């Protein structure tokens, strides 16, 4: 397990990270979300040892993370970049060897990944001649080349079309074995919702929510949807609920607890026929908005 414990980082006067603590559990994908400037990239760079923490530590299997162990991590930095004028196959082999693989093993693995990413025919092309989407595929291949023991991916899907995202997600699912913890940041909440098992929400350098996505969603007070035959405007006059929207016979409202909702349903039924009633599914964007409010 990868644990970030009490990470604090100052840039001059500015406090970029404030006592950030969370776990990345093996075999689970942990989504790392937060507004721009919340401190996601800073946290990831500290995990990878590219930036020093002002306080706090990163632990691996209970021990302090050492450079030797970290060498086996896979990293995709926010600012993409490889050698523009190097052939992509040579490039992947180089990074494989940089992580301690033998030439042969690295070559074998390179060919497999390039084939998997549909780049086999481009193997001897220079990186800069590839489209941006394909360059991004090579970048993820670099993060995966040495069969990392943990993955840290900073915005891995930004700039990809939906098909490319699917291909990359498939690849990740294939590569992420039950012993690998994966931390990835993203702005695309729908994607995080689809992919992630766990979630860490960061706001202004602080962790404001962390845990399994399902639990976080369940902890939210749900929004209910009511559709009646007639006008639902009377809901506005009731105490103990917050109306989000009323349009003709359709209304969306929040209640403090589920019991209140049942009382409202009874009232509605006493006024006439109820066509539809039930809790709306809680979207991750709501969790995010709620947490970072």
């Amino acid at each position, binding site marked *: 397990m990868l644990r970030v414990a009490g990470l604090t980082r100052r840039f001059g006067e500015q406090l970029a990270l404030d006592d950030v603590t969370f776990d990345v559990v093996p075999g689970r994908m942990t989504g790392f979300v937060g507004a721009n400037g919340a401190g996601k990239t800073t946290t990831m760079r500290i995990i990878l040892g590219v*930036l020093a923490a002002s306080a706090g530590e990163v632990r691996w299997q209970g021990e302090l993370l050492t450079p030797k162990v970290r*060498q086996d991590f896979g*990293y995709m930095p926010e*600012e993409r*970049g490889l*050698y523009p004028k190097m052939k992509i196959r040579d490039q992947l082999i180089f990074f494989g060897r940089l*992580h301690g693989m*033998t030439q042969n093993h690295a070559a074998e693995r390179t060919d497999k990944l390039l084939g998997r990413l549909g780049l086999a025919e481009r193997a001897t092309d220079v990186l800069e001649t590839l489209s941006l989407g394909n360059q991004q595929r090579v970048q993820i291949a670099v993060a995966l080349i040495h069969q990392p023991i943990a993955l840290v991916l900073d915005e891995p899907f930004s700039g990809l079309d939906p098909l490319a995202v699917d291909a990359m997600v498939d690849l990740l699912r294939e590569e992420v074995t039950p012993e690998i913890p994966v931390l990835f940041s993203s702005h695309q909440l729908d994607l995080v919702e689809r992919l992630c098992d766990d979630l860490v929400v960061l706001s202004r350098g602080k962790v404001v929510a962390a845990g399994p996505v399902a639990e976080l969603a369940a902890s939210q007070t749900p929004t209910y949807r009511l559709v009646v035959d007639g006008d639902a405007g009377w809901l506005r006059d009731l105490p103990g609920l917050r109306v989000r929207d009323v349009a003709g016979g359709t209304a969306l409202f929040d209640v403090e607890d589920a019991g209140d909702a049942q009382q409202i349903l009874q009232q509605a039924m006493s006024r006439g026929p109820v066509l539809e009633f039930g809790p709306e599914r809680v979207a991750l964007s709501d969790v995010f908005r709620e947490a970072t409010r």
Partner: protein
Amino acid sequence: MNDRTLDRPWLLIAEREVSTKLRDKTFIGSTLVMLAVVLAAVILPALLAGGNNSDKIAVIDDGGAAVVQRASQTQGGNAYEPLRVADQDAAEAAVTKTDATAALLPGPDGYVVIGKDKVDSGVGAALRAAVAEVGMEKNASAVKLTPEQLRAGTQVSEKILEPGPLPGYVSDFVNIGLALVFYMTALGFGMMIAQSVVQEKESRVVEILAASVPIRSLLWGKVLGNTVLALGQIVVIAAASLVGLAATDRLDILSVVAPVAGWFVIFFVLGFVALAGLWAVAGSLATRQEDLGSTTLPGQMILMIPFFFAVFAGPGPREIASFVPIASSMSMPGRMLTEDVPLWQPLVAIAILLVSTVLIIRVGARLYERTLLKTGHRLGYRQALALKAE
């Protein structure tokens, strides 16, 4: 998961540095140009002197051909070549059409040398001497004297009491040449090192590199790779000049240069490594290629000032310069070649250079570590020194 941990990441970095450069068309091109310049400098003078071009002399009998061959031998090598033709008319025609430089025909009492509008004085003298020699040997054998008996007591040889290492103009040439080799190589490779560092910063690949291996080993790898390349380039150029010297029969110069070659390598490597560290820092202070102009300025000065010193300064200042680090790499090997330098001088110079190289590299590594991952704006040297470790 992995086969092993990478014990010597700098070796892999160096390897990439070398293999990338060896495939880089600009690098290959500039090496070829340098090679051509050196070869031209070695071979051209000989070509211009005509040493390698044999002049054709038209002859019509065996006697004439023997004379031409003797003249050629006396000149050393193949200065003249007999061109056998049928008769006097054909020989004169060959000279008129400039197929032959001159013609050598039997005359009333010996031979006649025929030229088109004049007889080249060198050719004339050589043929006259050869005719005399061959004629005298023939006459001598008629009275049963061997050629040795004929020449007995007429030979003059030379002896020099205080042989200087090299004649004056040659020693100037060698001094400038050695300083130039270091200057050009250090400047050329220095710019390449700075560029390769800033390219890694610009393309952000440095973030992945730094996450995989210690930043210091990135620096060592770059310095090592480029030192190997620079030495390799010099070896290739040295080999080319050897070929050139051999082709022009000037291998005698080699016997003078050879004893200093080892010293040159030591001074070169130490000076180059110190500079390579500085150039790498120049690259890591920059964030874009355009910044290199200002961040490499100190490196250029450190090279340029001693270079002009080594080339233009008189013996006194040059002697002082040959102890100053970096400057010593440019002036000491040249001095050793052209003057009688006591052994302690190069040893002391090497000791000073070694200490400063270690110091420069240590400060350089510190600056490199602290600035490599700083992007956004160009840093000054003073700013960089004030930075704290990350």
